[in-house]
């Protein structure tokens, strides 16, 4: 399946960050990109529509990326949803925790467009 048919959900409380990720996704030919400003907002998006991949920040108010991940994995319809966690260099220890919570992959800030592309290629079905 080509990326253009997939719906991506970008979750970050910092709108500039969302834009950066969105721009990269758009360069990767994603056409449908949804946004949410924290885990809670993401949950409501997930409940309302079909999403094919989540790219989420870790550190957010209200509901963190990890909590979102746990929610996704505990939901029967969503549990196999590809989930890419964005984390900061200084918080790499988080990654192990995310992996335990079955994150599909993670990416460390700051990243390049290529890195994001590679990571997505790894977690998305061909």
């Amino acid at each position, binding site marked *: 399946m080509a990326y253009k048919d997939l719906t991506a959900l970008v979750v970050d409380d910092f709108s500039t960050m969302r834009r*950066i990720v969105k721009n990269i996704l758009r360069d990767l030919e994603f056409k449908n990109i949804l946004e949410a*400003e924290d885990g809670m907002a993401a949950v409501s998006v997930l409940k309302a529509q079909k999403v094919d991949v989540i790219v989420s920040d870790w*550190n957010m108010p209200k509901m963190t990326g990890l909590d979102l991940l746990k929610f996704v994995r505990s939901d029967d319809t969503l549990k196999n949803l590809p989930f890419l966690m964005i984390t900061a260099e200084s918080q790499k220890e988080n990654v192990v925790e995310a992996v335990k919570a079955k994150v599909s992959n993670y990416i460390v800030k700051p990243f390049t467009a290529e890195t994001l592309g590679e990571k997505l290629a790894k977690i998305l079905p061909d």
Partner: protein
Amino acid sequence: MQQLLNKLANSVIGGPDDLAGIGEILNLLDLLEAKDPSFAGNGAHLEALRKMFNHIILDESQDRQSDWLAIQRKVAELCDNGRDQSAAAGQPFETVCEPADPGFADAGEGPTGHGATEIFDPELVRDFLEEARDHLSSIEMNLLALETDPENLEAISAIFRPFHSIKGVSGFLNLPDIHNLTHHVENLLDEARAGKLKVTEQVIDLVLEAVDILKMLLDQVKIALQDSHPVQACWAEVEAFCKRLECLQDTHGAAAEAATGGGSGEAVEPAAPHGFPAAVDTAGEPAAAARGEMRTTATPSPSNPSKDPTLPSRTKERAASVRIDTWKLDNLVDMVGELVIAQSMVLQNPDLQGIKNQKLQKDSIQLRRITNEMQRIAMSMRMVPIKNTFQKMTRLVRDLSRKSGKEVALAMHGEETEIDRNMVEEIYDPLVHMIRNSIDHGIETPEERTAAGKNRQGTILIAAEQKGGNIVIDIRDDGRGLDTEKIRDTAVRRGVISGDEQLDEKSIYELIFHPGFSTKDEITEVSGRGVGMDVVKKCIEHLRGKMEIFSIPGQGTQFQFKLPLTMAIIDGMIIRIGDQRYVVPTISLQESLRPLEDAYVTVQGKGELIKVRKNLMPLIRLHRIFEVEPRCHDPWEGLLLVVNEDGRPYCLLADEIVGRQEVVIKSLGGSLGHIQGVSGGAILGDGRVTLIIDVKGIVKRYKEIHNDISDAA
């Protein structure tokens, strides 16, 4: 147990990229260990395996394939060992681990080693600046909340998060100074969050300072963006500041250790503040003034501001908002204004009004309703809550009360009141001056207050309220009140008034707004040299507002600003003089009346006066000022508009009042911009242009003419 082991044995399939699979294994390992702590012989092996996994996960291994093979081997052995329940020590494990170790040595490498990407998209940077500013103000708020409750973990998190976000994005946008600074602050906060660092006043001061530096750095980026030259590096300054942060962390860390070791847990004084130029203190700058954009909230902002200041109050009220350029919005408002005028020109067209068609009439009512609604919406889009401006005062009060050694609390009321965004920026300076003044001159020292039987802590209340088409802003303190005697004496000494001039209380109060007036004997750092209060007055007048002062000796002073809600529209009385029409701002009018013939008196040297309820008011003949031929020359035939200027009433003579209307203010343009007595133009419903009268200018003009006359006499 067996089941778990089987699962484990079957799980290593996906390869090093199968993070979900690895997670599964890690969870299984945890489970196994929890079930049987002696599993895998001793914890060291399990730990080694976990480390290897972490290496793979964090992409730190040098040779993924061989490491992966090693892991597979190890897991298989673990399974076998587990099955046999024999805890055979695994010599091979030790050797297996080794290839991974070099990876640890340079843990800084890995995916982060790529460096910042070169996304230098000006628009993105601009958005970042805007957002970062918002974040900074939320940081300031939460810091102040933290100060009152240093244990408040939620507040720490709420401060940590925006720093973290700014750091993340600045990394992308290639802004190393910002990145460096936020990184250090983040570290500091992280320790505070983990309870390793006690939140003291020093810590809060430092973080506040970091906010100031960040503001400065953001300003530089903004300037660089405007002039499109590279961002000026402030590496040395930032580095110096970061050193201080580290110092604080170290000393505190040491102190904490000392405390656990039984020593005294007193906080150690951090390194002396140095290295950062004082010029960086941009706290007093109207940060908002630098904004080129604004945020409009499509939904009305929620009116549930948390009353508890200790709660981290990062209200998310912008769930459904968009950012648009201000000029687009201003354009929209202008065009809607034109639409309204064009509509009334069409509908008031005599030919059209001659048509007796019910459908046309119904439709025109509908049209009018829609345009009115559009105008209302367009106007409301420019409205922003005054909250942000008010909140900036919190920091000011904190800093000033520290500097002056007085204890001052700031209370707010009606922060959700909305005001035109252009005005929001304009009222910042007056507010700052008023609050400085209140702290410096109004609020007494704690000792004086105790002696007077008051609470040690003084209170300043800032309140906003919408009243009709105006917004009323109150600044009230519970200090010593205005000293009329002292003000009078000073005014006489400074030659502002003559010694024998009789003034009522109100007029004396207003003297403090005279340029260069200050009753404070010594000049203080806080409110300076009496400059400021006249600036306040100028600002308020520029905004077409009014100011009132109330004061009770020993109990406090209240300054009240009455401002129009917007600068774009004015509520005006349309008056006629001869065949000309003019608009007088309703806010300037006190009353209108037609006097009796015997109320008109002329006094030698003072000109024409009108007696209204025992008050003598100078008569200003508008027709003379505008040089038009009026219909009525006698005041008792025409109409008098009573206005108040500089605390004194004047009567303006016009022929009649035609009506009252909200008009869209149009600037007269460069060459006509500064005509005394005229503040702008407006287009009336019939499409004709009128002038908007500036009462202050009229009075000034009158005085000039009057003086000429009396000089000539």
